[in-house]
Structure formats: structure tokens, C-alpha cells
């Protein structure tokens, strides 16, 4: 009985929340795969670890998911951080140089790139909140300069290394799960609770919703923005470690290329508005999963490489259109469809009968 109430409560909340559309889309993609992609949901255990397409989606989504988590908070304050790809490259490069060229303890290999990432985030935050540069420009500086920094760090080369403990980050596993999955969901939970169990989340939404009114409430908007840019850069830094560990090398030129756009897309698909205000971390995670499952689907379907991006773009367009209330209204007008009613009748709310 209690469980029934709980699920009813949960379904009710989902049905009325912003993330319902991203959830529906995710399930549609999974359903599509269930029907058309053989063995998509086939999971096998090798060496005490789960393998399979669906596991692969979660594993490969990790970098975008991490960047999207940070990006969500930045966007919630009304900003944007397009430097995450560069930060990712810098972080990976520093780790690679530390491993390949310097003799430092392992904890420093993990910590130094992240500390430096945090500093870069603080730089972004300072430019945005205290100097007053528009977020897209402020982070554009680092987007451009960051690649240069990464190249400086590696001396313009791709640094290859062998280092089993570091390789564990991308290649290892815990509780039968690929370690990147553990990391990304770990970070997700930490951020989720950090922002929920302190007033950070409320203040972020308040600053993004009405910065002037927040000021009257005594909220230091500058400091809040500083924090979210640091968090965003830290997430990107972690993604950089995963990427470097994955290819056992640091590639300052291509690592994290386009990450910022994918992350923004994941956030938007997840239901957070670029205008700032309310944010949906869960939505962003689902958004990242949607993007990765899409890519994986297209690849496993055997779509020719040259049309992959086009197919990807079309699906993303459809996803965004479905999210748009205006579009749904137009569509409903044309087909005399009652989306609301449709949703009401969906099994999501089955508990109401």
C-alpha cells in the first residue's frame, strides 16, 4: 500500500514536472531500440562486469553528463559556460604531463588538474560577476585560450602514457559497473545533495529568476555565480581525466571538442530554460543520456558515417520541437490532438483509477 502511494506520488510529480518530456523521449528512443536494434538490452557479465549496448550508453555519456551537470547550474543563474571543452582538454593534458614527464605521487595526478580546473572556473566567475562581462564572451575567452593553454602544457604534442592506476578511471569497474558511470552518477548525487541540503539551490534559482530582487533579499549574486562557474569547470575537469584515461593519452586539440554544445543541448532537452531560474539536474542527466543513446543507436543501426550527424541533428530538432509548448499547440491545432488528455490517459498516472 505504501509503495503504491509512493509510486503514485512519484508518477504524479513526474507528470506535472518539466522533466516529463525528456523522460518520454528517452523511453521512446529505448523503445525504438527494443524493437529495431537486436540485443540492445542484452546485458552480459564478463570479468565481473556488466557489458551491453545500454551499459555502453551510460558509460560513454559520462563526460557530457558531467559537463551538463555543471552547465545546468550556470544556466540556472542566467549564464552560460562555453569553455568546458577547453577546460576538459587542459585537465587531461596536465594529468598526462604529470604522469609521463614528472615523478609525482598519484594523488597529485588526480588533484592538480582539478585544482587548476577550479581556478579556471573561478576566472570565468570573476569575469562574469565582478567584471561584468557577458557570460558567453567571458567564457569564450577561455574557450579560445584554453586550447592554447592545453597545447602549452603538452608542448603541442599528443602525450601517450601507461599508468594502470590512472587507466582505472576510465577502464576500471566498481560493483560491476564501469568506473565512469560510478564517477558521473557520484558527482551527480554529490551536486544534487549539495545544492538541495544547503540553500545554494534556492539562491541559484533566485539569482537566475530575478537578480535584482535577490539583491534585496541579501543574496550575494556575485558569489553565487562564482560558485557555479567553479562547479562547472570542476565537472569539466573530471570529464577531462576520464577522457585522458580512456585513450591513455592527452590530446590538447580534440579532447572535449564540442563538449560545450552537447552539454548545453543536454541541459535544454532536460527542461532547464536558458533564461535562468528553475533548474532540473535530473533532466540534464536524462538529456545527456538521450544524446548518447541517440549516437549509439545510430552507430549500431549501421547508418553510414557521413549521415550520422544529420540524423542526429534531425532527432535533436524533433526533441526540441516536442519540448516547445508553442509547437505542441500548433500541432494539436492541426491534428486536433489533445496532448494534455493524452498525457492524462497515459499509464503514468495509472494509480488514479
Amino acid at each position: 500500500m505504501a509503495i503504491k502511494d509512493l509510486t503514485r506520488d512519484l508518477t504524479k510529480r513526474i507528470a506535472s514536472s518539466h522533466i516529463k518530456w525528456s523522460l518520454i523521449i528517452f523511453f521512446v528512443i529505448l523503445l525504438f531500440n527494443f524493437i529495431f536494434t537486436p540485443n540492445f538490452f542484452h546485458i552480459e557479465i564478463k570479468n565481473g562486469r556488466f557489458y551491453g549496448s545500454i551499459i555502453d550508453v551510460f558509460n560513454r555519456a559520462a563526460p557530457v553528463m558531467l559537463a551538463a551537470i555543471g552547465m545546468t547550474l550556470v544556466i540556472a543563474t542566467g549564464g552560460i559556460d562555453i569553455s568546458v571543452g577547453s577546460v576538459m582538454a587542459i585537465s587531461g593534458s596536465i594529468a598526462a604531463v604529470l604522469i609521463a614527464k614528472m615523478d609525482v605521487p598519484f594523488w597529485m595526478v588526480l588533484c592538480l588538474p582539478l585544482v587548476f580546473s577550479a581556478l579556471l572556473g573561478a576566472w570565468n566567475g570573476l569575469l562574469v560577476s565582478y567584471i561584468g562581462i557577458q557570460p558567453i564572451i567571458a567564457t569564450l575567452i577561455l574557450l579560445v585560450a584554453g586550447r592554447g593553454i592545453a597545447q602549452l602544457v603538452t608542448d603541442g604534442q599528443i602525450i601517450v602514457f601507461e599508468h594502470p592506476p590512472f587507466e582505472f578511471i576510465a577502464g576500471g569497474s566498481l560493483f560491476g559497473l564501469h568506473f565512469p558511470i560510478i564517477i558521473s552518477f557520484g558527482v551527480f548525487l554529490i551536486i544534487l545533495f549539495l545544492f538541495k541540503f544547503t540553500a545554494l539551490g534556492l539562491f541559484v534559482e533566485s539569482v537566475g529568476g530575478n537578480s535584482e530582487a535577490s539583491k534585496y533579499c541579501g543574496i550575494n549574486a556575485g558569489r553565487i555565480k562564482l560558485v557555479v562557474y567553479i562547479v562547472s569547470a570542476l565537472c569539466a575537469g573530471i570529464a577531462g581525466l576520464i577522457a585522458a584515461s580512456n585513450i591513455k593519452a592527452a590530446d590538447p586539440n580534440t579532447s572535449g571538442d564540442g563538449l560545450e554544445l552537447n552539454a548545453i543541448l543536454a541541459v535544454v532537452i532536460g527542461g532547464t530554460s536558458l533564461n535562468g531560474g528553475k533548474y532540473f539536474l535530473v533532466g540534464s542527466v536524462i538529456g545527456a543520456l538521450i544524446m548518447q543513446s541517440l549516437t549509439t543507436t545510430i552507430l549500431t543501426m549501421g547508418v553510414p558515417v557521413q549521415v550520422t550527424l544529420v540524423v542526429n541533428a534531425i532527432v535533436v530538432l524533433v526533441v526540441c520541437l516536442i519540448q516547445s509548448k508553442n509547437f505542441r499547440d500548433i500541432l494539436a491545432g492541426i491534428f486536433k490532438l489533445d496532448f494534455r488528455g493524452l498525457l492524462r490517459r497515459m499509464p503514468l498516472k495509472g494509480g488514479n483509477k
Partner: protein
Amino acid sequence: MIESTPILQVKSLSKSFPGVKALAGVDLSVWTGEVHALMGENGAGKSTLIKLITGVYRRDQGEIIYNGEKVNFSSPREAQEKGISTVYQEVNLIPTLSVAENIFIGRFPPEGVKINWKSIKKSAEDSLKKLDLCLDVTQPLSSFPIAIQQMIAIARAVDFQAKVLILDEPTSSLDAKEVNLLFSIIRKLRDDGLGIIFVTHFLEQVYEISDKITVLRNGLLVGEFETQSLPRLELVAKMMGKDLEEFENTEKKLDSAVQVNGNRKNGKSFIQIRGFGKKGMIYPFDLEINKGEVLGLAGLLGSGRSEMAKLLFGIERADKGKIYIDKKAVSGSSPKFSIKKGMGFCPEDRKTSGIIEDLTVRENIMLAVQTRQGLFRKIAKKKQDEIVAQYIKALNISTPSPEQKIKNLSGGNQQKVIVARWLASQPRLLILDEPTRGIDVGAKAEIQKLILKLSREGMSILFISSELSEILRCSTRIAVLRDKVKVAEMMNQDIDESAIMQAIAEEDNGN
């Protein structure tokens, strides 16, 4: 040239917006070579009238006769081309372009495809010279102070062969010296034969520069007057809609509440403010608020009431003066600091500085409590629900649920939520800036009652309102502001509305 008709004549102009009659049957006559002040409090219809004249809005009824013929401008641009130019309070030129470009933008002299920069520079200098201004016109507009930008805007406006110049609160962000400079230009233009409509809130300036005054109130015409023959007090009375004789004849009635309040006049001081001020905002002032006292702040719009409150709360940093709380000097000025010191501030503009639209009623209420608690000591959901339920009940906020987004509430209820936000933070001094504006009568009475109740419980309240009757009903003492200066302070028992109005209107009498 002897003229027998005004250059611009407006006859029984009316305009309605959904649900509001913004302007009803207003007349206005502007003659060449005169400065005509347009006065009225908030919502009087001044800006609607100007927007109707310049073609921003379409009128519902009435006619506009300009230069002898009926006109019907479809855009400000058309009005400008015909010779009616407007300069707004916020200079709406482009800061990054040069002065010359700003003067000529949108009407570069046609010379094939190429723009002749030399001739533009020359004509820009000429048109500025007409106003006795010598500037480097190649410099970007933003490199000049606001006053000069304002004059450049006027130069541009006049350059359109203007016959009528409308100045919409041009002086509100200028200091005394700059105002003088602007006035000398206005006089020059007047002597050149322009008809000038001058919108302002500053009485001093009206009497300094204008020849005639048209007063509007609540969208209605109160009347047109010769400036010389209209005493200040009468002007204030007309703007506020009070009949002078009525005042003089009415016996002073003491509200029982006021008596109760008055008895506490010897309460202990909570906050003392000494020589607090900021250039361009408000001249240095002293103020003292006792515990359990309601200090009313009266004055016309733009007299510095809100500025005083903002400075006090730390929204803006004062450049002079000191604050003592409980007789101890406090340093620091930020809203957060003020909240920690036990202050709360309901700002005037609910929409832009009060509510956070997308957050729920609960979240909106909790914000100030939470900043007072600090970032890391989040108030538990259960405790939040208790606090929120308590204030929803206490203030009678009508909302379907605490989790309703605040933007879905009515204005009065939104206002109550903001008040609840501050009450929940249990302040010792609550600043209320026009808390009853734009809300319905019921909610208004409730808020007034609440003010009295809170003060009885020992809270100090700084109460700003445009409505004298409301201030009189609620306050123990009343401070009066005029033209950014605190000009008077009086005990409520000794005065009535006409005394306050006299203070608002009077010339300097050494405080």
C-alpha cells in the same frame, strides 16, 4: 509675428488600456516661446499624454492640432519629422557611437552612397554651438557625463527643425549645477521660439523655469495655470487631489491608533542615521527611528523617499555619513549586512525588485530567512512549511497552495508574500516602500492594520507612501522630503494633511 493660436493644441484626448482609463478628456495648449510644465503624481497620465502626442499610442478620442492643422502621427519618427521632438529621462542614444553620429543617426545627409563625414562633423558642431556647447564630436557619447548626453539629445531633437520640444523628466539624474546648465539651454530655446513641454517632479524647478503648468490627476485634467499665480501649496494640493479649503475647515481627527502610537514617542532609539547621503541620489540627512515606532516618509514622487530607503538598507552605498544601531556605530553596507542587523525592506517596485516570479510562494517567503540563517544552514522543509503556513494564515494570503508559483497570484497577494518574507526574518526595523500601491482596498486595509499591530509589538517601521491619509493614519512621526532633501520632521499629533503638504511645497525655511 503675432500668433493667436497655440502651436500645439490637444483637445479632449482620451485613451483606455484594457481595464484602465489612462486618460479622459484632457486638454493641453502649448504656445511658441513658452515652457509648459506638465505635472502629476504616478498614474496621472503624463506619459500617456506624451505618447499620444508623439504617436507612440493611438488615441481613442479627441484631436491634436499642431501648427494649425489636425494631425495624427503614426510613429514618434513621423512626429519628429514634423517638428515635435522628445527627449526622455534615460538618454536613448547609442553610447558607443560618436556624438556626431548620434546627432545624425537615421538621417545622414544623402550624398550618393557615401557618407560625407566631414560635413556631418561640421553640422554636428554647428547644432551644438546653437546650444553654446563646444565638444569634440568625434568622441563616443559614453565619454561624456549624463548631463552633457542629455544636452546632446536635445541638440539632436532641436536639429529636426523642431517647433515643439518635449522633455520627459530630463533632470531626475542631474545635480544642481547640471540642472542650471540645462535650464540655460531651455531658456535659450524658448527665446528662439520653441514651445517646450517640461515633465518633472521637482517643484523648485517648475517654478524656476516654467511659464504655465498643466496638472493631471488619475487621467483627468485638473487645470491649466499661470505659474506665477499658482502658489506652491495649491499646486501640491491639486496634484494630490485635495481641496485646500477642505483642509482648513476640517477638524483634526485623531485616529485612536495614532494616539496609541503617539504615547510611545519616548521609546528607545533603534537606529540613528547621521549625515547619510550619496551624490546624485539624496542630500545628507539625519534620521532617528525608535523602537516600536512608525516613521512615515512623505514627499512627492522623486523627492528621494525610495532613495533614502535604499541607502539605509545598503542597496546603494552611501558616500557620506554614519549609522548607529542601538547606539553603536555599524560599518558595512550591503543588504545582507542590513538583514543581519535586523532590517527588512519591501521595495517599491514589486515586480522588478520584489517577487521572483518562477519560484513558489514558499520559496519566495523563505528567501530572507534563509539569507539571515546563512547559506549552509538550510531550514528544514518541515520547518519551512510551518513558517510559511503561519504567515499565509497571519496575512491572509490567498493562494491555492504554498507550492504555487508566485506569478500566478494577484498583486495584493504578491505584496503580502513579500511582506511575509520580511516578517518571517523577524526584523527589528521594517522598511515598507509604497506597500499598498496597486493593490485592492481590502488588502490595503489589512496591510495598514498590520503595520500598527507590528509596531505595537515593538517593531520599528519606516513607512513610505504617497498617500498622506495613509501616512497620517499609521505613523507616529513623519519626515518630509522635497527635491532630494529632508526638509521637515514632525510629530503626528501636531499636524494634519495640510501641514504635511505645506512642508512638501514650501520653499526652504532652514528646516
